[in-house]
């Protein structure tokens, strides 16, 4: 089979395509002509239509039944339309019972709804109160403690001085004639 794009132009120009196209058209022509030839003979059709009519009649019967059932009222309508045959004495007795029950209900003492009474009850609520406590605290001063510390450990201080300062020699020392005295005020509060 020739493989070519089956555009009209190519079909007319290409000899192979033209031949292929003609072959396909011929195939189609023959096939469609012979499809009709598969139809049964004329003698077949009366029986066919008789069978079809029979089926239609059956379908119509079921169709009518379906339609009839479709026309039936719904169960709610049937419920409200329903009637039950009741003997007269029974009916009268039922009416009497109904009337008596209505009378009884109307004469029954009315139960009033309980009224609401407002009662004031004082309630003590514990409240947490804050209390401020002032306290005077005396404490020793730092300097006093330091001095006491120094007096407690003099040997230690001396050794420390000896370590930090060089040993002073008195070579070239001349004592002055005047005495210069410098008084340093301050110190501990008890000192006067």
């Amino acid at each position, binding site marked *: *089979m020739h493989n070519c794009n089956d555009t009209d132009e190519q079909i007319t120009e290409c000899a192979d395509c033209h031949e292929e196209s003609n*072959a*396909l058209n011929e*195939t*189609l022509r*023959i*096939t*469609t002509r*012979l*499809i*009709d*030839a*598969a*139809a*049964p003979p004329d003698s077949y*059709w009366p029986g*066919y*239509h008789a*069978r*079809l*009519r029979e*089926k*239609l*009649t059956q*379908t*119509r019967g079921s*169709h009518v039944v379906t339609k009839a059932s479709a026309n039936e009222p719904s169960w709610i309508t049937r419920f409200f339309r329903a009637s039950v045959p009741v003997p007269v004495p029974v009916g009268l007795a039922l009416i009497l019972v109904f009337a008596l029950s209505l009378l009884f209900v109307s004469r029954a003492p009315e139960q009033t709804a309980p009224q609401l009474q407002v009662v004031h009850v004082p309630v003590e609520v514990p409240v947490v109160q804050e209390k401020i406590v002032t306290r005077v605290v005396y404490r020793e001063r730092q300097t006093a403690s330091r001095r006491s510390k120094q007096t407690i450990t003099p040997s230690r201080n001396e050794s420390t001085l000896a370590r930090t300062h060089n040993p002073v020699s008195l070579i070239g020392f001349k004592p002055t004639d005047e005495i210069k005295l410098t008084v340093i005020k301050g110190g501990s509060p008890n000192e006067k």
Partner: protein
Amino acid sequence: MTDSETDLIRRAQADDTDAFCLLAESYARRIYLLAFHYCHNAQDAEDLSQEAWLKAYQALGSFRSDSSFYTWLRRITINAFINHQRSNSFRRQGQTTVVELIDVDFEIAIESRSASPETLYNKVLFESVMNALAELTPSQRLMFLLRHYEGMSYEEIANAMNCSTGTVKKSVSRAIVKLRARLNADRDTADESLTRLAAEC
């Protein structure tokens, strides 16, 4: 749509079975042929075509004259075919019945020697076409028939069969190629048969 057809439709819509049967007589042959080529069996074709008619009868109330009656009927028929294929397989698959019938006819024709060579050639060709169609799948056959026998467009077929236009084109093309290959192969056999028949005459 003719006036008589419109009248028949109106009467059929009013549950007139006779009117519907008259309508059926007008189109029964076409519907039967579609069914026959679709299922490739005479008994199945009758059942299938009548099923389509029954469905048409039940759905006749929905026909609104927007399209022709046959277009509407064909749509129902195609749906019936597709549903039938889904629900159960056909009674006798393939070309067995058809080929046997044709073979018998051919033998009778040869024996009687009353048939003309052209008629015999047509019968052989018919057998070839039936065999070639039988090699296609039911969907391919239906698409081919709708396109080249019913003259529907690819879009119409795709719409009726719920598939894409491309699928329809591909199926129809494959069907034609298969038919052509089969007919070419069988044509030589037919020529030989005719030559034999001519020699015997």
